[in-house]
């Protein structure tokens, strides 16, 4: 399983969306994933992948529009984490 698959599996499970509909270019709004859903999705991603995402629902600095945005942000944190270890 690739990392993207792993991320999308978590999104599908936590946001209760059909996994087959989840592609990187899918918009969160089209998938009916609300901001409150995202709070739970990110919490699960952090827990399972051992990362911390700088996500504050109040600032526009980290606004997720598509699943690709989420994947990109997770990969960035995973890279920072592995970079920190070497």
């Amino acid at each position, binding site marked *: 399983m690739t990392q993207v698959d792993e991320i999308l599996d978590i999104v599908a499970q936590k946001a209760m969306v059909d996994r087959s509909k989840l592609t990187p270019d899918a918009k969160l709004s089209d998938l009916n994933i609300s901001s409150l859903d995202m709070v739970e999705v*990110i919490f699960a991603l952090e827990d399972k992948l051992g990362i911390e995402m700088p996500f*504050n*629902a*109040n*600032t526009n600095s980290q606004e997720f529009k598509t699943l690709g945005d989420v994947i990109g942000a997770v990969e960035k944190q995973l890279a920072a984490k592995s970079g920190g270890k070497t």
Partner: protein
Amino acid sequence: MQNQPRIVITGMGVVSPIGLDVPAFKKNLFAGNGGIDSVGFPYRSKEVRFPAAAVKGFDVSKYMDAKKANLLDRFSQLAVAAAKQALDDSGLTLTPELAERTAVITGTGVGGQNTLEDSYMKLLGDGGSPRVHPFTIPRLMANAGSSQISMALGITGPGFTVASACASAIHAMGVTLHMLRSGLFDRAITGGAESCLTFGTLKGWEALRVMAPDVCRPFSAERAGMVLGEGAAMFMLETLESAQARGAKIYAEFAGFGMSSDAKDLTTPDLDGAARAVVNALKDCRLKPEDIDYINAHGTGTRINDLTETAVVKQVFGKHAKKLALSSSKSMFGHALGAAGALEMLATVLAVREDKAPPTINYLGPDPECDLDYVPNEARSMPIRIALNNSFAFGGLNAVVVVKKAP
């Protein structure tokens, strides 16, 4: 409707992050002296800190003896302290006859959270005790605030607690207003109390990702969310007739109350739902939007609340929205959840009484979506005949009250 008695405020008490009584609260409110600091908790050999507006220097022994205080969670201690101040301030002596016709109706969001967490820590923590304190339940119950006030003040009329998260105090004060109008009782202690600056609660709010990393700057550019507070504010309400008959000092008229439910999202505020509560409050006292000079906003400092509340004011008030002043006292004493509406009621009454709008402090500059007059950073002297106080709770339960200058 025509023959409804008018209800007035004749006593006030407060224990808050910006003052342990009304004179101190008033001084700091208008001076823009905020009470947001931070609180720390030991956790796994580290200290974890959160921004918070705590009540500092509260001496419970001024209000009850140590044996009594031991029966009360901190939220009830704050409630009783504010209620005693309000009764003293009203000049009333509650004889058995008067006490029977007096109610106590107060709000709290969560109740005895300090007690709950302490007991869980003892029971479930490392090396924990297999037993919890025998007063755990009577301390933590949500109605403890109202119950303890009734016992401390000898109030023997109706008593109960209202819980609707961040709107608890406004709902409590609003139903008290309507019950007083209906003649169900003659006077009441009402308001709200909250104390949940606990590690578990703060972690819970942190997990919702709506908390600011430093201070609360409502309606401002670069605002980053809420800061939790604690405290209590209580009021003595009675009819205008009874207040005048006994020559009581009247702080303001409590003129109206409106509520609504969004029936939409758990945490995202709804423009139409909140606007309905404002319209209902105006209808309740037959006022027009142009009659309002000042609004003490819900103003939590979250991106979505502040832009929605701005849109609500524009929708209800039309052109008048640009003329009235609107400020958030949460910038000073944080979001005290079930006590918020009561602390803000006190700020609203003082604004009407002093003809002065309290400031929204920590304001850095305009947000393009928040373009009203938020009284940035400094209090402003201005005529305030009538003011609103908004609370919009999680769960989409909205409540708004109207305060008029004393008749």
